């Protein structure tokens, strides 16, 4: 298939950036990133600079890849990361637009690569259970209801890619933050620090410059792990509960 790509090129953060057009030949079995590899090999053959993009595991779990494809983070398919998107979902002759995440708190480093260290700092502010190595009791000493463990897992499945913030018109990181808060807060192990954690993580999220949630639901739609927006409601309840002293975990 013959495609035209409109790709965002930006030398560095100081550069203002622009779209460049490229022609590329692909076939339907390729993944989107393999198509980008082909384009980069073409550019290198012409001694031109390849397009910088972030990628690593290429199986949808590391959270590195981050392209806005035709206006949607990770492209047209729900529940799919960029690396798992395959070219059979495009047609011969298509023009495809490729951009980086557009989020104030994720400054562009080069081309499609952005700095997502804000997410690390949110986790560092309290996204953990304070237990040192060696302090643990026997794992079966705390039974946890199967469904509850499943709910915690559903939140814990977040890969930290940032698509939620990129999809949100307010560039809000509330889906990411709430997923971690609820993963930990739903479990008895995480309940002890829950109130403190909610306060600390929400404060850090605000300091990083992410916007507020206005319930558009775009984050849930574009989350490659299909994390539910109800996590945000649960986080809000915990946040107000922690402010007014009535909160006892995410349950």
């Amino acid at each position, binding site marked *: 298939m013959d495609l035209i790509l409109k790709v965002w090129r930006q030398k*560095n953060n100081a550069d203002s950036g622009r779209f460049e057009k490229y022609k590329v030949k692909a*076939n339907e*079995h*390729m993944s989107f*990133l*393999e198509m980008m*590899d*082909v384009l980069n*090999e073409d550019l*290198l*053959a012409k*001694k031109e*600079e*390849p397009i910088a993009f972030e*990628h*690593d*595991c*290429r*199986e*949808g*779990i590391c*959270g*590195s890849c981050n392209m806005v494809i035709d206006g949607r983070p990770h492209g047209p398919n729900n*529940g*799919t990361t960029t690396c*798992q998107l*395959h070219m059979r979902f495009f047609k011969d002759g298509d023009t495809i637009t490729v951009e980086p995440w557009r989020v104030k708190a994720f400054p562009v480093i*080069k081309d499609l690569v952005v700095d*997502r*260290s804000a997410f*690390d700092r949110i*986790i*560092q502010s*309290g*996204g*953990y*259970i304070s*237990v*040192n*190595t*060696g*302090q*643990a*009791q*026997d*794992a*079966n000493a705390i*039974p*946890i209801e*199967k469904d509850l*463990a499943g709910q915690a*897992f559903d939140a*814990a*499945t977040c890969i*930290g890619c940032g698509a939620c913030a990129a999809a949100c018109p307010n560039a809000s990181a509330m889906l990411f933050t709430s997923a971690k808060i609820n*993963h*930990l807060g739903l*479990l008895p*192990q*995480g309940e002890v620090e829950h109130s403190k954690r909610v306060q600390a993580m929400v404060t850090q999220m605000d300091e990083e410059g992410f916007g507020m949630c206005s319930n558009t639901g775009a984050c849930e739609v574009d989350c490659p792990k299909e994390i539910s927006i109800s996590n945000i409601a649960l986080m809000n309840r915990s946040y107000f509960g922690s402010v007014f002293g009535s909160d006892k975990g995410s349950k």
Partner: protein
Amino acid sequence: MKLDGKTPKGPLDDKWTNYRSKMDLVAPNNKRRLDVIVVGTGLAGASAASTLGELGYNVKCFTFHDSPRRAHSIAAQGGINAAKNYQNDGDSVYRLFYDTIKGGDYRSRESNVHRLAEVSRNIIDQAAAQGVPFAREYGGLLANRSFGGVQVSRTFYARGQTGQQLLLGAYQSLSRQISLGSVKMYNRHEMLDVVKIDGKARGIIARNLLTGELERHAAHCVVLATGGYGNVFYLSTNAMGSNVTAAWRAVKRGAYMANPCYTQIHPTCIPVSGDYQSKLTLMSESLRNDGRVWVPKKKEDVMAIREGRKTGNDVPEEDRDYYLERRYPAFGNLVPRDVASRAAKVVCDEGHGVNSTGLAVYLDFSDAIQRYGKSEANTMGNHNPDAATIKRLGTAVIEAKYGNLFEMYEKITGENPYVYPMKIYPAVHYTMGGLWVDYNLETNVPGLFALGEANFSDHGANRLGASALMQGLADGYFVLPYTIGTFLCNEIRTPKIDPNAPEFEEAETSTRTRLEKILNIKGNQTVESFHRRLGKIMWEYCGMSRSAEGLKKGRQMIRDLKAEFHRDVFVPGTQAEFNPELEKALRVADFIELGENMMVDALDRNESCGGHYREEYTENGEAQRNDEDYTYVSAWEWDDDQPILHKEELIFENVELKTRSYK
């Protein structure tokens, strides 16, 4: 040089306990004065860095990723072993130890493996306390499943994302230490050299990948937890960034590379579909709990399937060859990985492969769907269910167990595995070889430690499923934090290491020269094209089966490739900027040299064992070990022209060396 594994004396069961109880310690007030560098933030690196931080050391931790959470441990699917015996099925520390030694084809060190089995139990406790959402039963207690090469259920799991959840647990602990100030984190930094002063590892040269700046980082000791080197084959299940550079740079500074030829080819991966392909995707071994592996017996069925006239579903039961169940009735579809991979190669070489390339076998869940469907219907009180009900209920059970894997398969292949049997083929997955380490996980370079997949110590010639996560976390949480004290207790009077020392100057200069040389070649071939060619050579001559003739040829081809690379590679841009092509070029240059080491090692080992299968040494189609001559660890002191082999004899005091049989 005689290699001393430093195995403590005494009975196997008590070695670790006694050693740990009597080793010299570093007092808390002295820990504050000691600096430790940890390179890598996968399971081993993140768990080590956080635990060392908790103990009070000053830790600097490095990753080339944009965040420690992206290390490739994140992609591990199936599970983590532990000798908890929660299932009451006869498991014990000894059994896990024995299974691992046998699974490794009697090529690992008894004392290290026993310690691994002992601490496995603590890992599960630690992870549960961190909030890792392991799978649970209705009673709220932890669930287990089985993996290849064992006859008990000792694998703990979190759906098909166990590595992700365990890594996030370790990452969160690390994040806590970062926020407390005991660990200083350096993201997007790649280690390009080890610095030795008076023979001891005292720091690293790291390149800031955003600015290109070469930085000197000094410490009292250096810990490498930098993963495996499977990407030497270009196509593997490893992440694109996984590389051998940190370990290979240590080798260039005198560390020994042990057993580099032991490569694990995983039997259940999605087959290759085209030349543009950049990586292969694993389908967890846990699938072999419920999937049956087969190929058509008749060539006409094979041809019809390859030409798209038939699907696997059209082949009647009597015309299917369930070759693992036929050849290995005791373990059936759950034979270890090396055995399953070779068996797949055999049936495909005989012309029974089921996709257009002829390189694929079926992994079929239809029997499991039937079995689970009936049992679910029974529990609902329906003792006479119709076929559609059975299928619906059975499919739901399979979906609950393996949903994310089936989804991933469908995304990649475009085929629905609930309807058509999966097609799979072996692919490079893990490397048992790595830096040589003693019982303390210290390499032959004093003060340089290696953990997890980066060392060679626990898996012998073949790793059992769900043991990589176990080893990474055992090393990082429960072994290194103790054993590092054996080195550091003699350093409490050593002042801060000076990054302006001439050794740092020399290392920085030689690194800069190496970078500039590669940039100045300005040839005509891309880094990627060299990497692909290297992968083809490795797969052809040092892959699933090897021969003396092929290995000699392969070695020469690699040497030619190396010369061509340094003459004709094209790397755009400059050193002093964010330059992903330059990063790749440095990694591929190191892979090429490692590839030669692998060929040399495979040629030295005139036997077949585990992941190392030499065509000349077989017995009735099975691998033929030679215990008389090869019960040793090969530790290579690398030199391009005259590599020197150091042997560590393996002494088995507790298990009897037997022909490994899964029949």
